[in-house]
């Protein structure tokens, strides 16, 4: 009797370096991937290639002069960085913001959320293989939002619009009518877009069940934003810890259960719709009045410390500022969303293939400017 021996291939894992500049790594991000064939066993993320030392630079500039620096952190959604920083300094100095400025801040923050999700969904589908078509469709809408912001403050990408105590300029006359015209257009566009992608077999085959992040792991890592909501954690700072005038609007928090890439995509699409609801309500309720409290250009908040956070498009973005009654912050730490969200990547990719690794990384929505600061 012949015994059959199972022939097994003798393999050993090897380490592949996905270098800092790669077309699909959304910026300068490097990974050492341990592979067994094509299956990912482990990754070691390496970053710091865009570490510009913003926290140290902020100690050398006045409080108002730090606002352009904060823009350049999460450069895909610059208004929310400004918002969070101004909230922290106002909390430190006890400065009250007029109503009109609060409403303007909410409108710009929600428009910025829509623009950021356009980029995030487009980039994720780019990574999934739809080279360019959904990305440029969504980029068209993002350009329309750029036009609105250019009307406000003259810049397309990095605005430097908010100031401590309000905003820097009032709304021009043509802004609110333009926003009112834009809302139904965008609603129609999102419906059309979803019609193509919601039941798309390729997207479902690639993204459903891939890269699952469980609720316990997400809480342990401190994940926030759409990634956490897709895993079942019902936590949104606009409802749980309301700041500015968010408690006056009606909107829902989309949450899903599974925590895979498809759920993250769905959460972002739903959030765009909810942001449109908030913009619609706030455009009707904008009051008149001053757009900024009169504070000095060079302010000296009293000695102390403060932490303020907002629900940015990617998650919880916070600033911890320590002041010693001088013209510059003594220490300012940026609680950056992308760095903390990236921590969970290692657990999410074990056992998947290289192509899925790229898709999972794209679905978390990272901006390297925020990771490296």
């Amino acid at each position, binding site marked *: 009797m012949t015994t059959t021996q199972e022939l097994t291939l003798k393999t050993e894992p090897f380490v592949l370096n996905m270098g800092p500049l790669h077309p699909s790594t959304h910026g300068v991000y490097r990974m050492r991937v341990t592979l067994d064939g094509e299956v990912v066993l482990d990754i070691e993320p390496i*970053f*710091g290639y865009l570490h510009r*030392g913003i926290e*140290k630079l902020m100690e050398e500039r006045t409080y108002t002069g730090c606002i352009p620096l904060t823009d350049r952190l999460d450069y895909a959604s610059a208004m929310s960085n400004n918002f969070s920083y101004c909230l922290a300094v106002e909390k430190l100095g006890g400065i009250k913001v007029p109503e009109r400025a609060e409403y303007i801040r909410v409108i710009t923050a929600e428009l910025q959320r829509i623009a950021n999700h356009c980029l995030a969904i487009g980039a994720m589908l780019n990574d999934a293989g739809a080279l360019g078509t959904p990305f440029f469709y969504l980029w068209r809408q993002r350009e329309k939002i750029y036009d609105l912001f250019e009307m406000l403050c003259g810049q397309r990408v990095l605005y430097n619009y908010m100031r401590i105590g309000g905003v820097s300029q009032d709304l021009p006359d043509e802004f609110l009518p333009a926003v009112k015209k834009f809302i139904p257009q965008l609603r129609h566009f999102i419906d059309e877009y979803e019609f193509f992608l919601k039941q798309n077999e390729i997207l479902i085959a690639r993204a459903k069940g891939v890269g699952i992040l469980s609720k316990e792991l997400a809480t342990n890592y401190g994940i926030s934003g759409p990634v956490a909501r897709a895993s079942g954690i019902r936590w949104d700072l606009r409802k749980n*810890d309301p700041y500015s005038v968010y408690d006056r609007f009606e909107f829902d928090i989309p949450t899903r259960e599974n925590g895979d890439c498809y759920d993250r995509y769905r959460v972002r699409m739903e959030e765009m719709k909810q942001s449109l609801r908030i913009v619609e309500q706030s455009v009707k309720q904008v009051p008149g009045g001053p757009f900024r409290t009169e504070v000095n250009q060079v302010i000296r908040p009293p000695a102390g410390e403060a932490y303020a956070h907002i629900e940015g498009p990617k998650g919880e973005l916070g600033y911890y500022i*320590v002041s010693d009654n001088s013209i510059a912050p003594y220490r300012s730490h940026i609680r950056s969303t992308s*760095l903390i969200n990236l*921590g969970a990547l290692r657990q999410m990719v074990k056992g998947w293939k290289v192509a899925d690794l790229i898709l999972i990384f794209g679905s978390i929505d990272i901006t390297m400017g925020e990771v490296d600061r």
Partner: protein
Amino acid sequence: MTAALSAKEIVSQLSARFPGAIEEAGLDSALVKSESLPAAAEYLKTAEGLKYEYLNYITAVDYYDYFEVVYMLTSLEYNRSVTFKVRCYSRDNPSVPSLTGLYQGADWQEREVYDLMGITFEGHPNLKRIFLWEGYNGYPLRKDWNR
């Protein structure tokens, strides 16, 4: 509304369990001694009625006499947050116990504090520089660092 616990409440809730280790520091944060940090954090995470399972951030500040490491935890169930601090008085070799066993999100944030401030975390599985390269001389975020 996330109610931030004030210093008095933190002290009153914890000082029965950890006598002498917790004291007030300012209006909304408590100062914890570094030896009792892991035990206090575990108690905050697992005790009934507290359940602070979400780590917001870890950062460090350099006041010239001492370093202060600041932690903030949030309880998602009860919608409350707590801030506490640990001080290390040594300038040459400051060190604090690590919380990586309890919160895995503390991993990279402690590495960042090590990289930029030079504070070592005992018990960290992989304490090496994260933003700057191996062989970089100095810790840039310290107040007495000059290039």
